């Protein structure tokens, strides 16, 4: 951690960034914004840091203060790469203080982050346990699956913490806030909750880095990672999609190949 703090402090001292976003030593590891070199002493990182700090890059307050640096475990590195592929992060505007477990791996821009990921983390995948739960769910009958999600989604209070926590949700006006027409009912009721949660997941397809921040942020404990993981697998198996490894990547939805599967079509 010493190395991380020194690196952060150096960046601020050399004015290479105006802000270092990291996690604070306190319980719960809340996000910590270090604007002055001397603040960096309070930075910490360990497994209990569940928040994806890349989500801040979508917020106007932070964009106003670019360039900034982030404390970034692998999943967050991927988020930064995804965001630069989607032109949300201008080259050099965001530096990643790459961390893994308790080791600090160095400071990278988006391109460098991608290289690091390809070299060291080329096979990041959802935890087997998670995939097993997905499989388990698919073993059930459609009716049982519907019932399962009905129970889960009915808990949703539509607080949109999942959205706020997700680096992929950087739209200035989310579809759920569009009211002419209003595709997604904002009432915290069955069909609105269903459509919202399904579309939130779908909008991440080919973009989700499985950081888990959405699920961690959900006050109602909805198993959102089931949806994310299922989509991640499908995207990988069908289209070889591995979001967050190539800052030049074309969006999975928004590109195509003539030999994409359509066995399910008639």
């Amino acid at each position: 951690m010493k190395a991380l703090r020194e690196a952060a402090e150096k960046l601020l001292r050399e004015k290479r960034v105006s802000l270092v976003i990291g996690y604070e030593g306190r319980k719960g590891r809340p996000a910590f914004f270090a604007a002055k070199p001397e603040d960096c002493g309070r930075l910490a990182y360990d497994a209990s840091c569940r928040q994806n700090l890349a989500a801040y890059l979508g917020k106007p307050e932070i964009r106003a203060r670019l360039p900034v640096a982030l404390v970034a475990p692998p999943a967050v590195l991927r988020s930064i790469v995804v965001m630069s592929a989607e032109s949300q992060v201008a080259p050099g505007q965001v530096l990643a203080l790459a961390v893994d477990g308790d080791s600090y791996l160095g400071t990278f821009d988006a391109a460098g982050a991608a290289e690091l990921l390809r070299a060291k983390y080329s096979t990041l995948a959802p935890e087997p346990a998670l995939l097993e739960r997905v499989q388990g769910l698919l073993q059930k009958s459609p009716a049982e699956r519907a019932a399962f999600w009905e129970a889960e989604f009915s808990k949703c209070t539509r607080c949109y913490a999942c959205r706020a926590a997700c680096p992929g949700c950087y739209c200035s006006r989310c579809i759920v806030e569009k009211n002419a027409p209003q595709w997604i009912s904002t009432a915290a009721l069955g069909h609105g909750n269903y459509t919202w949660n399904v579309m939130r997941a779908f909008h991440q397809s080919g973009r989700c880095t499985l950081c888990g921040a959405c699920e961690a942020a959900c006050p109602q404990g909805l198993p959102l990672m089931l949806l994310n993981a299922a989509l991640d697998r499908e995207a990988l198996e069908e289209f070889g999609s591995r979001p967050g490894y190539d800052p030049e990547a074309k969006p999975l939805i928004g590109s195509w190949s003539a030999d994409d599967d359509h066995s399910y079509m008639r």
Partner: protein
Amino acid sequence: MARIGVFICHCGENIGRTVDCAAVSAAAAKMPGVVVGVDYKYMCSDPGQQMIRKAIIEQKLTGVVVGACSPRMHERTFRAAAAEAGLNPYLLEMANLREHCSWVHSNQAEATQKAIDLVRVMVAKVRRNRALRPIRVPVEPTALVVGGGIAGIQAALDIAAGGKKVVLVESGPSIGGHMARLSETFPTLDCSQCILTPRMVEAASHPNITLMTYSEVASVEGFVGNFTVTIRRKARYVDPAKCTGCGDCFNKCPIKKIPNEFDAGLGQRRAIYVPFPQAVPNKPVIDAAHCTMLQKGKCGLCAKVCPRGAIDYQDQDRLEKVKVGAVVLATGFQLWDHAAYGEYGGGRLRDVIDGFAFERLASASGPTGGLIKRPSDGKEPQTVVFLQCCGSRDDKVGKKYCSKICCMYTAKHAMLYRHKVYEGRAVVFYMDVRAAGKGYEEFVRRAIEADGAEYVRGRVSRITRRRDGKLVVRGADTLAGRPVTIEADLVVLADAVVPRPGSEKLAQLFGVGYDQDGFYSEAHPKLRPVETAAAGVFLAGACQAPKDIPETVSQASAAAAKVLGLFAKPELEREPVIARVNRTTCAHCRACISACPYGAAKDFDIVDRAGKVLRAVADVNEGLCQGCGTCASVCRSHSVDLDGFTDEQIHAELNAL
């Protein structure tokens, strides 16, 4: 406040028989926003249309739904009627009560219920329709023709004759293309140069045609009516303005032994050269790769002898932009390299030549002055074997397709040879003789009956060279069912017709599709054979598929007609079904830019007065947008919408179900 009129057509009995039209109009009349609900025997008839026009005016309708046949049938009709009554035509929608309802259902209750639903959906939609104006794009009435062969020349001449300007771009030093290399042409055996060269001259001298030889398309911007094309003018090292074509330079040039591409390598040229005597423009270029002056700075003879000081060793490639409204691609073809056939000598046997080489041997202006002499020893071949389908109809080594012209030119070759070498023996190996065309079959019969060409149905399995220089040709006569061996002096392979190298790259520049063999794809194989998927880009000649001269010329004229049609109006009018971006909510994720099949969606910088970039967003180019709506559906925040099929309209339709 919406005031919708609903007009239900009985279409005689066609709809009325199964759908209770009165019930439908009555139900429609009760739908929200509907002020008129009527049904009538023939809505498309004059009284029917009059009924609609009258209602629009008297009832001050803000929208109309016609429940009748398929919109593909009469949407234009009814929209025109609405327009006459002063209603924006795009405020009228049709409910398909015939093709999609009365004709496919027999149960009246069901059909009527469905008809009511279909009408309700359209009423819901039309209430959200917005008045649309056709997209108008100004047209630059100048055409670009790429390729100076007979296709390009013909297209250019026809467009020029129509009074429009043409820029004719040719990559070689002279126009004329392959046709200039031919000796005689089938099926009339008239001399190719005699019929071609006058047109070359006309193209060069026509006031409406700007000739750009030794030039290539470097890049393309814009869209139909408004292309900006950058042309690379390759360095000629000879100033055409000063050069008189006197020829002193290439008569003096000491570098003499360069195989002349025009003569299929049989003849030779200098380092400074015109490809052939009748070249247009008849002004030399320096082949930098072979010129010792340009390579090593030694020689400079041509500059010394040039009376006009036209030689310029410092010459550089120049880029030149032209603004054009339409493009004709006429890049032609080349012959497939038969080196891939090891059994035919793998390209190592000098006396195994391709069709163009034979054309040059037979051509009066060719390297042998029209005498048939074989390359290896210059002897007159006493036996010549012609081999059709070399690389065609052979997907194992060559191409799947039939190259179409080989049957005819092989028959011609056999004829020409027999005309020049009376005692000579001409043997033709063929799979089938495909002589479909005016006077073609007769021509082939003539080659066989009058000129004694021996046609052997079968393939050649091997061509080997004997020590005495004879080519031993072994094959099968599948009609006689026995192997044949022929000792030949010369073998002519009818190599497959393939696209020019770089044709794919050019297609990509213009957004034109091409097939697995590299031939350009027409917009529709039957009904739009000269258009391409890229609006304003047309095709002529063998760049689309193997073609003979008559076909090529007809297509070139057809392309010219399309271009002139496009130029007939100062502006293009297009269906206003195009996408629009909500710049305030666009997050610039660029998904739409990646998805757009037409490159219509692009980056756009929002700038302040000082020109400082505040924010980047996506934007749609009206000229390029074809209205598929793919951009709208990849936009997560629905910041892109599609006129005519807006979110609001679709949402309303769904709620009406």
